[in-house]
């Protein structure tokens, strides 16, 4: 990286930009600016809407800057902050446990099936890969956890099923094959190193970009998941944050729909501005966190791709 930095200024100084390049740059910058605006605008509208009075949204529509500035939506959400904080806590828990254990298992599996001395590595790889094409489907999956393992209501079926995915295992294997030449491990072996020494002292240190990539995939997956809470939670104290928010919205729609069939209370439903404030609350941490890992994320993917 630093090498590139050194080169660039010299290149810029010596070659004068031609008109063609200038036009190209002008067009490229315009397009990129437009593109970024398209990406950023919805989010600005969400943030601005979350600070707008609900009736104003309904009557006048959304705007870039809040028309009637108010904190009422956030006050509504944090009036009983216990639920949302619990959901935050659980999501952090699932994300940390899931990413930690998942990384360990994926890396170890990837290492094993990348070793040439493991005779059946292709069979095992195939078996792992096979599950990404043929699955049993949702109902057997549900019955397995709910009835056979009897885990419904506990937190295990929320983080366990996503510990490994064939895609990430294959990605990790490819990465290991590319990053660790056979010669290195062989020489370590000659020096008397066992599998564990080789793995922890030689392989693992060069895997950092790979770990960051797979870890980020895992962490994002855990952070954004709501489905497993929906399936297996029997108590709202084990809900993931995304499910907590998603369910609030679903409750609104479902109850409105149901109200045409059954007498039931439809008051106390989240309003537009509350929904928007929820979106902000849910995405906030990821937004803060993402730029810091993104560096690894991008280099991880490219490194894996080039060398793999």
């Amino acid at each position, binding site marked *: 990286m630093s090498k590139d930095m050194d080169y660039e200024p010299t290149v810029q100084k010596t070659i004068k930009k031609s008109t063609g390049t200038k036009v190209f740059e002008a067009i490229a910058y315009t397009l990129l600016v437009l593109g970024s605006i398209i990406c950023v605008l919805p989010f600005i509208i969400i943030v601005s809407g979350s600070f707008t009075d609900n*009736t104003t949204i*309904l009557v006048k529509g959304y705007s870039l800057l809040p028309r009637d500035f108010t904190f009422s939506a956030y006050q509504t959400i944090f009036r*009983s902050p216990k639920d949302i904080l619990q959901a935050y806590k659980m999501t952090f828990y699932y994300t940390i446990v899931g990413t930690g254990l998942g990384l*360990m298992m*994926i890396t*170890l*599996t990837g290492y*094993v*099936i990348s070793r040439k001395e493991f005779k059946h590595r292709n069979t*095992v790889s195939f*078996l*792992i890969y*096979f*599950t990404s094409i043929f*699955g*049993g*489907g*949702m*109902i*057997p*999956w*549900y*019955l*397995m956890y*709910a*009835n*056979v393992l*009897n885990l*419904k*209501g506990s937190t295990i079926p929320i983080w*366990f*099923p996503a510990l*490994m*995915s*064939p895609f990430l*295992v294959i990605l990790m294997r490819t990465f290991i094959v590319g990053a660790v030449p056979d010669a290195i491990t062989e020489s370590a072996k000659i020096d008397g190193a*066992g*599998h*564990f020494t080789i793995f922890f002292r030689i392989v693992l240190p060069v895997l950092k970009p790979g770990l960051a990539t797979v870890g980020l995939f895992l962490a994002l997956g855990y952070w954004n998941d*709501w489905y497993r809470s*929906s*399936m297996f939670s*029997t108590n*709202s104290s084990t809900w993931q944050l995304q*499910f907590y928010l*998603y*369910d609030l919205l*679903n*409750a609104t729609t*479902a*109850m409105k729909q149901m*109200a*045409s*069939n*059954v*007498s*039931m*209370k*439809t*008051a106390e439903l989240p309003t537009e501005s509350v929904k928007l404030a929820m979106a902000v609350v849910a995405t906030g941490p990821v937004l803060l966190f993402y730029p810091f890992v993104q560096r690894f994320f991008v280099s991880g993917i490219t490194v894996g791709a080039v060398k793999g």
Partner: protein
Amino acid sequence: MKRKVLSVLLSMTMLAGAAVGCGSAGTQSAADQLEAEGVTQIPAAQEETKEETTQAPSESAAQEEAQGIDLSDQVDLVFYVMGDAPQDEEMVEGAINEKLLEKCNATIDMQFSTWTDFQQKYANEITAQSADLIYIANWLNYGQLASSGAFEELDDMLDSVAPDLKALVGDANLNMCRVGGKIYAIPNTWPEYVCNGVKYREDLRAKYNLPVPDSLENLEAYLLGIQENEPNQGLLTVTTEESQGLKTGFDAAWALNFKYPWVANNGLDYGLAANYDSPADVYDYWYSDDFVDDMKLMKKWADLGFWSKSALSDTNNSDAYKNGLCVAEVAGQNPNKQITAIADFENAGEGWESGYVAYGETNGIIYPGHATQNGTAIVRGCKNPERALLVLQTLLCDDEVNALMQYGIKGTHYDVADGIYKNIQEEAGETPTFPYEGFNTWNLRNGDTKLPQRTDVALQEMFDKYAVLGEKTKFPNVNIYDGFSENYDTYSAERSAVSNVMRQYLAPLEAGLVDDVDAAVEEFRSKMKEAGIDKCREEYTKQWQAYCEEYSYK
């Protein structure tokens, strides 16, 4: 040695990895195995054990209620209901279980579907057979589930275990829950009118001295009058949202219900219709002259500017009426929505008033909700169906338990003043930790003891009015249509083609957004033929007539 242990560990991790990776494949075989063994042997999940054994049941009370079944073993039941759990779930459950242990030596654990993916999860719950008691409703495919054997038959058990329950519910209601001649569910006993009608602004009507919109002519006069006096006021906010079934394609067409004494709002599916007085005589609507006249009326209304030109692509704004963006609503408006509107207008404090006319008041056909709208069934595979039924009887018939179930703990969650329910926390401006019907057990409403809420008084007045009207119909206060469930397995392709043609051709026709009504009707009709409407109609009529025959609606 150490190295060997390590490699064993390593390979175990890898195996575990394979197991997780192959998760779905693994479950497949497990499920097959289960099927082979007979799914009934799956043990019911019993997560409520924390509450058990603390209370020794009082023997004498148990004996009293026993009615011939053995109550010596404590039974823990799971009761699966829809929606979200109230905050004080455990507290109220504890109080209920105290009583249930005394009376039936049983406990219940409420489990909630939440509103996310609830159809799928409801089906899962029945497949997994992990619940004992379960909420049923026609909108959760009660009929289909019952006929495919998802629930226990209750006929014999009702006599032997729960005669009180049978007496309370009554034969007429139980008969409506019959599927293939057997009872599979116990309905609630609160007659609820979910008829449809028109909600309008009474204050504006009075201000400009306009007629009450109780017929197509008067609705037109009402809307025209407002248009004349307040040209900037929106009139109808109608979209395609409330009309997603196989009856109409556009919300404004609901107003036509003023005209027809049909067995259901908007007629039967596939443009068929039958009058309430002779439900088995199915006749054609889409290919009749009436239909052409009605579509011409819709075009007239559209040309008068009653709704937006972009109505077909607008998204539904269900708060439009509340915020004064329209002056009437014609689609999907039941008495309960009128009650909500009254409360909304009161809160808004702009001096607005909401009025309501049910279509049935004009066309003479009005009836309460069908018995299968809110009911309880026992899931097949339940280990103690008799005890479950006994518990259900207690939940519905025992006033004390029923009140706990529906309203929570008296003094903590609610209070009664002048016979009206009052939520203590709500009055104090807090979020209620156990709201009215906090367990969403609409299936446990007992008509004799149900505590009205403040808003229910007005609702009950409307119901009383409708009950009198309903008495005068040929089948006094019987909801014929909602017990019927169509089985379209053999013509699902034609059915979805018909549905597409409705979106594409019927919706603009009903929205009056066509130039030449006659030509558009012709096009719609021929497209319908191409889509295979005849096959749908033939099968549907056959099933419908068989249904009328079975329940003797003749």
